[in-house]
């Protein structure tokens, strides 16, 4: 299996008036393709900071002092974030930080949303209240893949009745994705295959109805302006000059936006949102928390990214709704070959969906292991105590962890857990423990 992401020795600190908080103190992490990696830890352990660093969304007063985040294509995502931090680590220069933030926003714009995306904790505040949800989904597709939208629509207008007939035949014969796209490619109908497959995979429709819908995906009438816009977008190579004239660019955007809404409806029906064609025209406040979180997930998945960071996606939701979202996450993992980083304070939630889990303490990952292993055979004392503290429905005795979370301004020397650890030795107070592989895939820093 290949790596999607490699984080090495990541160190991040926050500048505040009360001092410098060392939020991350050397995080190491490798993420495999198509896996769900869980990150657990208590409040203030730096798990959210880690997620934000990977996607480059740290607030202005945070700085990456060391470390790399290597993405699929050997690209170091946080290179601009490290800029200018090597020397003046304890001085804070707002103007310089703002410049760095702007630089990061610019450099990562093509990665964010298309290859890496993020889902935030509170679905109530993470959608823009004055924009329709369909727009918010469509926007991300228009930003990154305007061409695919143009292709979709043009394919529908170019396809003939015979084409759709042929596709339906293929589907009925049980053809797989490749076969359909090969057919589409050969007929110059790129963009039709996803639409066809998305309809075909819906399970709330009867066979005949699906066929009917697929058969209707041909000879769509296009206005002449629409056609010109779509064809020029299809050719790619940036916007032609005439499309930059204010009024026209708006109209051209409108053409793409309409197709973006259709795509949004497709995405939502995939995420089992009832009445997706009505939902896309709604505003966030008209939807329930679970529904909004689905919208945010739809935004995250719109461009088939390689990595999705889920930051406490279910913490604000009720148990039954949480179960819906967890089910959905499992389902999506099978459907796409996407990697997920699932951040949560709740180990029980992670145990439901994750392939591997990393336990964070004081800005470091102290133990990584496959889910079953970490629950059955935790090695790090912190992990062991954490496991004992979780109340279970079966009603076992639980035990708290003594002591308090360390002050992140002066993290204890050596192993950060040593003041709370019952087995701490003199060595623990001096030497920082390295990550060791104790068994296949089970790493621990103790």
């Amino acid at each position: 299996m290949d790596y999607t992401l490699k984080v090495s020795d990541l160190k991040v600190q926050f500048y505040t008036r009360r001092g410098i908080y060392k939020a991350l103190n050397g995080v190491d992490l490798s993420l495999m393709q198509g896996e769900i990696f869980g990150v657990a830890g208590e409040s203030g352990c730096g798990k959210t900071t880690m997620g934000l660093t990977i996607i480059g969304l740290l607030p202005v007063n945070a700085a990456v002092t060391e470390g790399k985040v290597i993405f699929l294509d050997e690209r170091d995502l946080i290179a601009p974030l490290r800029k200018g931090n090597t020397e003046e680590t304890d001085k804070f220069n707002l103007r310089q930080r703002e410049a760095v933030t702007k630089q990061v926003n610019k450099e990562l714009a093509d990665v964010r949303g298309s290859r890496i995306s993020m889902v935030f904790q509170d679905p109530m505040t993470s959608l823009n209240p004055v924009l329709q949800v369909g727009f918010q989904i469509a926007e991300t597709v228009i930003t990154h893949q305007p061409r695919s939208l143009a292709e979709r629509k043009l394919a529908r207008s170019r396809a003939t009745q015979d084409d759709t007939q042929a596709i339906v035949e293929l589907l009925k014969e049980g053809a797989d994705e490749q076969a359909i796209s090969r057919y589409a490619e050969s007929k110059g109908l790129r963009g039709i295959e996803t639409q066809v497959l998305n309809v075909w995979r819906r399970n709330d429709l009867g066979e005949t109805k699906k066929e009917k819908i697929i058969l209707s995906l041909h000879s769509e009438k296009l206005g002449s302006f629409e056609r010109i816009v779509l064809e020029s977008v299809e050719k790619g190579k940036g916007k032609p000059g005439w499309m930059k004239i204010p009024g026209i660019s708006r109209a051209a955007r409108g053409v793409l936006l309409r197709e973006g809404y259709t795509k949004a409806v497709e995405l939502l029906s995939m995420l089992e949102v009832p009445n997706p064609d009505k939902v896309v025209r709604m505003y966030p406040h008209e939807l329930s928390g679970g529904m909004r979180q689905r919208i945010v997930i739809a935004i995250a998945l719109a461009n088939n990214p390689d990595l999705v960071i889920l930051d406490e996606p279910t913490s604000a939701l009720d148990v039954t709704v949480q179960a819906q979202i967890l089910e959905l996450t499992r389902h999506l993992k099978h459907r796409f070959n996407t990697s997920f980083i699932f951040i949560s304070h709740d180990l029980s939630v992670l145990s439901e969906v994750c392939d591997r889990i990393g336990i964070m303490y004081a800005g470091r990952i102290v133990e990584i292991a496959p889910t079953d292993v970490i629950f059955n055979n935790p090695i790090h004392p912190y992990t062991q105590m954490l496991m004992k503290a979780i109340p279970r429905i079966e009603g076992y005795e639980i035990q708290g962890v003594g002591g308090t979370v360390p002050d992140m301004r002066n993290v204890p020397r050596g192993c950060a857990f040593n003041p709370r650890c019952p087995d701490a030795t003199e060595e623990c107070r001096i030497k920082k423990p390295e990550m060791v592989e104790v068994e296949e895939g089970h790493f621990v820093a103790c």
Partner: protein
Amino acid sequence: MLIATRQLVKHFPLKGTGAFGNPLMLKAVDGVNIQVREGEIVGVVGESGSGKTTLGRLVLGLLKPTSGQVFFDIPDDVLQEYDDYVANNDLKKAADIEKEYSIFNKRGNSQKEIRKKTNIVFQDPYSSLDPRLNVLDIITEPITSTGYLRSNEAVKRCFELLDEVGLPRDFAYRYPHELSGGQKQRVALARGIATLPKFLVLDEPTSALDVSVQAQVLALLRRIRTSHNIGMILITHNIAVISYMADQVNVMYAGKIVETGPKKDVILSPIYPYNVALISAVPGKMVKGTKIILKGDTPNLVEPPPGCSFHPRCPVSFNMCGWTAAEVASDLKYLIENKYADMFKAETVVSTNANGNVVIKNANMSQILSLLNLEKEKTRSLAAIDRSSESEEGIELWLWLHRTPEMYQYSDRLVSCFLYAPRDGKSSPQPVNSAD
């Protein structure tokens, strides 16, 4: 009985809806009976919007109920008497008992007496401690205001309490913002037990805390319960916490209690369909069973679904659970237009009529019947169809009359589901308009 509520109801008027006629009402708590014995921890579990927080405040008289009673420290035989009077509609005698035991009838000193014997611990330790008072003032407040001790003794008591909740004595002169979340919650707990109350409401006492701290606070709570024999109502959405702490468990849904009984029954072998799904959905169980994923969200409490309010999401609901013609019609419409689009003509129209029945135009009976047959199991609302008739209007589907479930006894527990209704014929389903 330490605490007993009878038909407790709280409706909140919705802001901005009273301009024309009656304002819309948010039915937060709708006819709740719960009981707490001395030294017993009674859990109330439910999702957001189930009314559990409102219930906690009603029980202490912090909110005035729309109707219903809360009795404090009422002898079991008197309570039995009261129930009999109410059952026999002997309201005058019932009112006498209410006067004596209801906390809403207490004023002045007798109210203070109750305040001394009861208290509450809130979820958010950040907002439940006055930032302008130090820990000493916070903890001694209930002691002095209820006249439990004189103020010079109160200071001594405060130090004892700090010892008891495991905080150093010099914390007495700290301010809330100088404490961590767990320490604040300990202070809140010390305030809660300052007057050695007989009854304590715990409103999500650990939801704002990390697991490691939560475990400490829960252990402390259990210790306090055993050492002082305090009866508690523990309100939380966290089923694992309830399971760890409670003796009796009440499950709330949409302002009503839907299942109540001993923990081992209600949590470990739930029977109410919502509760079954809820327990199955709890993450991180040792033994992973099949999860029941409910569709949709918790109902809106302004217009809760008729009949059993869980019926629209219920995986096993049947004919009399509360299906309305509109619900049946919309499900049928969806099926006809999508899944069974090939069976029906495009002109098929589904609507409801004045009789409260569903009318289908441009379809024939055999199609409808076969659809009903095929979908009966999957689409629960179709179970509400009793019979069909044909007229010029089209095909008319007659629905069963729906009823609201009561609490039915089922071994040690009470459950509000028709599946567990006694088979005495009284509650068997009645079709609509069956008289004619």
